[in-house]
């Protein structure tokens, strides 16, 4: 019984998390002492399958069918269901992408199995894998076990495994194209090509210093206080999603999985709890400062400097102190 890694691509281009998941798969196969298969699904995926076969995997599985030309939950869940039944893996790993959120629960449920979503770690014990998940918005972590027989389905969180730790193979692995029984009529939904609402007006990606506000700012009337600090530090103002959802700052200032990804020298998080969807957008910052009144806020797990306090006391003091230095 093997480990099966399900990669993700769109239009012939890899999703970057595919290789993080492959790293997780290589570690899992090593720990379980079993073969590793890497799967790619789509239409015309020969080149992508060749990319995978250069990695240290036992084999590459290609699901190649016109029905898989564009993503649909019906088409992909059915194709993967057929693949899982043919391959009979012990563990099936996905990257925790939006597409996997849309797909994997359906696939696992169609087989009457559990799907452990967004794991930050996997351990292997005699009875089976133990997955580490964030609960309560990251305030607590839990060891999660799955009851019943394999296959076990799980997805791995962005950044939990390193794509650059994927090991290349000594010789190209063989590619197996599976026979699938798919028909266009199985797909009940249709999708149009992706679009962007507004071209990013501010490119926060090149900012050196970012002062970012979260829901701790409490009221749009308080935004100027954060702006004053950003100005005093010579940085840009950014925000967590709820601030942009509320229209307190424009959408192009949102940091996170559905906004921009930044890696400034300094990221100052004011009243941001540190949910993973925010953290993936800023954890590449060189120095992270968090100001939060809750010592248990997950943002402190990744902060270099932490201030447990009311931001409305710290921010004016910082603006003042900065003025005195200059």
């Amino acid at each position, binding site marked *: 019984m093997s480990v099966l890694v399900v990669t993700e691509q769109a239009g012939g281009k890899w999703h970057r998390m595919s290789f993080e998941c492959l790293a997780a798969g290589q570690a899992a196969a090593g720990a379980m002492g079993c073969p590793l298969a890497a799967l790619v699904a789509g239409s015309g995926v020969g080149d992508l399958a060749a990319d995978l076969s250069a990695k240290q995997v036992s084999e590459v599985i290609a699901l190649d069918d016109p029905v898989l030309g564009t993503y649909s*939950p019906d088409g992909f869940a059915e194709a993967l269901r057929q693949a899982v039944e043919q391959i009979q893996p012990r563990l099936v790993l996905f990257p925790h992408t*939006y597409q996997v959120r849309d797909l994997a629960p359906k696939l696992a*449920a169609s087989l009457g199995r*559990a799907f452990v979503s967004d794991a930050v770690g996997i351990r292997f014990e005699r009875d089976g894998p133990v997955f580490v998940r964030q609960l309560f918005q990251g305030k607590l972590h839990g060891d999660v076990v799955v009851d019943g027989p394999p296959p076990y389905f799980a997805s791995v969180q962005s950044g939990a495994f390193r794509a650059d730790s994927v090991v290349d193979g000594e010789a190209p692995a063989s590619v197996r194209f599976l026979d699938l029984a798919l028909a266009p009529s199985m797909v009940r939904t249709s999708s*149009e090509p992706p679009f962007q609402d507004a071209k990013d007006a501010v490119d926060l990606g090149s900012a050196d210093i970012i002062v970012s506000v979260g829901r701790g700012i409490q009221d749009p009337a308080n935004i100027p206080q954060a702006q004053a600090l950003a100005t005093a530090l010579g940085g840009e103002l950014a925000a967590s999603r709820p601030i942009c959802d509320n229209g307190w700052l424009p959408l192009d200032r949102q940091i996170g999985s559905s906004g921009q990804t930044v890696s400034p020298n300094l990221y100052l998080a004011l009243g941001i709890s540190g949910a993973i969807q925010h953290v993936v957008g800023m954890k590449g910052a060189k120095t992270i400062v968090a100001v939060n009144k809750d010592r248990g806020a997950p943002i402190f797990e990744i902060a*270099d*400097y932490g*201030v447990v306090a009311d931001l409305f006391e710290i921010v*004016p003091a910082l603006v003042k*102190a900065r003025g005195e230095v200059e």
Partner: protein
Amino acid sequence: MNIFVCVKQVMARDSVLRPNETGTWAVDDGVSFEMNEPDTFALEEALRLKERHGGEVVAITAGPARSASTLREALAKGADRAIHVEGNRYVESDAYATAQALAAAIRREPHDLVLTGLQSDDAGFGQTGVILAELLELPHATIIMEIDASGGQLRCKRELEAGWFQTITLPRPALLTIQSGINKVRYATLMGIKRARRKPFRRYSPDELGIGEPVHQRVRSLYQPRQSKQTEFLEGSSQEVAAKLLNKLRFEARVL
């Protein structure tokens, strides 16, 4: 349109959390509860669709006795009826078992549209809606930011990663999981709260719905996260903290 909207009661956002004795969930004595925030957006969307297209909004939850108050809140905001699948098992239950309970109740009635939030603030599976669609044999779309139900089909704006979107078309009936921020949620009025008392409220036990206790995944132990970085905490008066921090950023981190 018969719209079902799934709402979950969770511990309030600012609750101080610590693991319970069995290490399977957080201690909830003395904690206050609220409607899972993403579900408030799903409820609001259901109410708006009803206002535009007519029909009925049914709020449904699977949860212990206390979660009736979250259904009352949904009724006060404008839902027409509520369904409560009542059981303590739904406090720590996995997404599959929850979806099974919701499916068993929804299946008994005509449904054109089922809405859920994207994710619960406590368990955070991000799965219940999609599993529910599978159990009800409905097509689904997730992370929805806009719904156009004016035609025979549903045209929805689905959020993709990094600021991209796409339009998805689905036949009805269908299930959609709603992204936070899709709308501005309303508050319950005093009038609404009064009216809610007279609205139909159906309670089911899992037995009545013929569902067992399927456990697929469970938390074996719950603990405080481990630090991934060595955080230096700065203490003192605001002035002292500000001075220390600027100093560290200039001379230690060298980022100012």
